């Protein structure tokens, strides 16, 4: 009898151990289209890609790797340095077997918050709702050699053994072309354009100081990333300097010294074309400047940064807007971009100009 009890206890122990080692499936069927989208993005937020993929409908016809690359980025793009911080969903339409859900995503990236809106088709699949995930098909460039022989500037500086009269290489001459102070949403904003007038590349930084009615300095700011810092010869860049929570009426004058410029080694490539620029309304009805970037060189640009300058009918710079593109710009393959334009300025814009900053991981 005691032997039987022993055997039973041993069997019970084995059953309990087995039960404990088996993980229950976390995937509870999504009872609604919105729940399916929310569960998917909850998993993305937790970087649980396998679980997120479980909410993708088999009809999507993508493998988990493609799904992962679509959400987590590739080619050293900005998305590869991002994580989903927040999202909210809204059902746009719903039928018995199909629904359209808009997901507004906020990504936390290396350059600040990045906002994305996706309209997702959700389908009924075997009693639960799943997302029909579509990956934008990106054309592949056939393997080839793209010869590039663009100029590169290197610098030999004055050595310690040179006599004190020996001259150093001159810093580049840059000039502020225009400056327009405005007040937007209670913030003072200084914007305009700067040109590298020299024949060598320049690293520039534009700084403005606001002087109050009593002659004291209110604030000093630089254009930070609202400008192209490396300007090639004769290159024109916009700049925008934001002074948060300072009203223009508080400002007596703006001190605007010669922009800082440094002689830096630089390369003349990549050449990036900005095609089919046009001002349109986005899904929320706000004006945006859209277009496509095309990298005419042979090297991947990991993080493209688009700067748009908007002019009124007198040619005055009335707004400078920028936006990062979260996909890498591959050679010869067009990449769409969109930068926001303020609603109140859309009517005044008569002209615009787009320039592109580029950040490449394997290039100094």
């Amino acid at each position, binding site marked *: 009898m005691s032997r039987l009890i022993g055997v039973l206890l041993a069997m019970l122990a084995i059953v309990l151990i087995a039960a404990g080692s088996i993980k229950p499936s976390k995937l509870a069927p999504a009872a609604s289209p919105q729940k399916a989208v929310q569960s998917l993005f909850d998993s993305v937020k937790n970087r649980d890609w396998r679980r997120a993929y479980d909410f993708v409908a088999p009809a999507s016809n993508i493998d988990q790797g493609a799904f992962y690359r679509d959400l987590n980025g590739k080619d050293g793009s900005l998305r590869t340095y991002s994580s989903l911080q927040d999202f909210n969903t809204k059902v746009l339409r719903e039928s018995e077997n199909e629904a359209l859900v808009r997901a507004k995503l906020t990504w936390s990236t290396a350059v600040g918050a990045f906002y994305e809106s996706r309209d997702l088709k959700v389908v009924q699949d075997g009693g639960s709702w799943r997302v029909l995930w579509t990956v934008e098909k990106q054309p592949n460039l056939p393997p080839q050699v793209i010869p590039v022989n663009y100029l590169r500037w290197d610098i030999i500086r004055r050595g310690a053994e040179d006599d004190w009269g020996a*001259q150093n290489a*001159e810093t580049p001459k840059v000039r502020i072309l225009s400056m327009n102070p405005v007040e937007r949403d209670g913030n003072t904003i200084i914007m305009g354009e700067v040109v590298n007038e020299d024949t060598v590349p320049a690293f520039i930084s534009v700084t403005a100081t606001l002087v109050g009615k009593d002659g004291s300095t209110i604030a000093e700011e630089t254009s930070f990333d609202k400008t192209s810092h490396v300007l090639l*010869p*004769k290159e024109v860049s916009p700049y925008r300097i934001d002074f948060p929570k300072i009203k223009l009426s508080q400002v007596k004058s703006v001190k605007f010294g010669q922009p800082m410029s440094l002689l830096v080694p630089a390369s*003349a490539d990549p*050449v990036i074309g*900005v095609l*089919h620029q046009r001002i349109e309304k986005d899904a929320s009805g706000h004006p945006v400047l859209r277009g496509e970037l095309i990298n005419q060189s042979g090297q991947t640009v990991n993080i493209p940064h688009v700067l748009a300058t908007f002019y009124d009918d007198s040619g005055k710079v009335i707004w400078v807007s920028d936006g990062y593109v979260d996909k890498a710009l591959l050679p010869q393959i067009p990449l769409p971009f969109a930068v926001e334009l303020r609603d109140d300025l859309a009517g005044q814009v008569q002209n615009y100009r787009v320039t592109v900053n580029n950040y490449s991981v394997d290039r100094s």
Partner: protein
Amino acid sequence: MKYLANSRNSLLRRLADMAIILAMCWFAAYAARAAELKVPQQVSAGEGFKITTSGSGSETFYLVGPAHVAKREVKLGEPIEIAGEEVRAAGRYVAQLGKGDDAARAVFYVIAGKPANINFLARPSRVAAAKSGAISGVAFVFDQFSNAVLAPTPVNFNLAVEGGAPVTRTVKTQNGIAWTRMDSGRKAGAAQFVASVGDTSVRRVVEQVASDACNLRLKAQRKDDVVIVETDPVRDCAGNAVPDGTIVTFTQVDAQGRSTVDARVKRGIARAELPPSDGATISVAAGVVIGNEVRIGGGR
């Protein structure tokens, strides 16, 4: 009485001895004070010379200069040899025999020797061609011991670019410095800016670069599924080719929107590919200079 006479004689003898000793001491002191130094008014840096002395015996000699101090025993009446390396630094020197209030002192000045070195500041290192008064040169003239040559010295400034006529100017130094201002030449290239004094010269390079583009012109042609735009050779108003790497912006405006390419000048020409279009206007600009416009798809 006799005793008194003897003691008086003895006293007088002692007084006479004392007087003789005092006289000898006075003479010795006088002789020592009489040691004199004769120095030249002016000496060239690095050149040895002699200081004559008077008197007899020996004495300690001191030489105190702006960058050198010497002390040695000398025989009075014989000249003191001053080596060239003791007077390399220009300035005021004090020669002294003995010490205290009775020491003999003489002051002399060492002036810079012949011009042997030039420190030449040429600014800027890079300048646009054909700019008036854009190049400055400042020459500081020194002797071989790095003393500033303060005597007015003519300095020749020569600015020449290969294939162009050189510009020469002679300027006399003031307080050891000569300066000039020159126009940059019309021809781009590495200008040799030379400052020379006698056989000594220093060369600097002033890069004369092309100014803004002038008469910027583009042409466009369709090829396969793109529009190829290309400038004529981009030159400034003096005919110098703008440097490679200069940004030239091509802008195409059509019904599909606006397309821009910031092309780089390569071998004097900027070239870019724009998307195919019917009825587009294409313009070109470099910096603040605007070129011509062409229309494609609707005749030029």
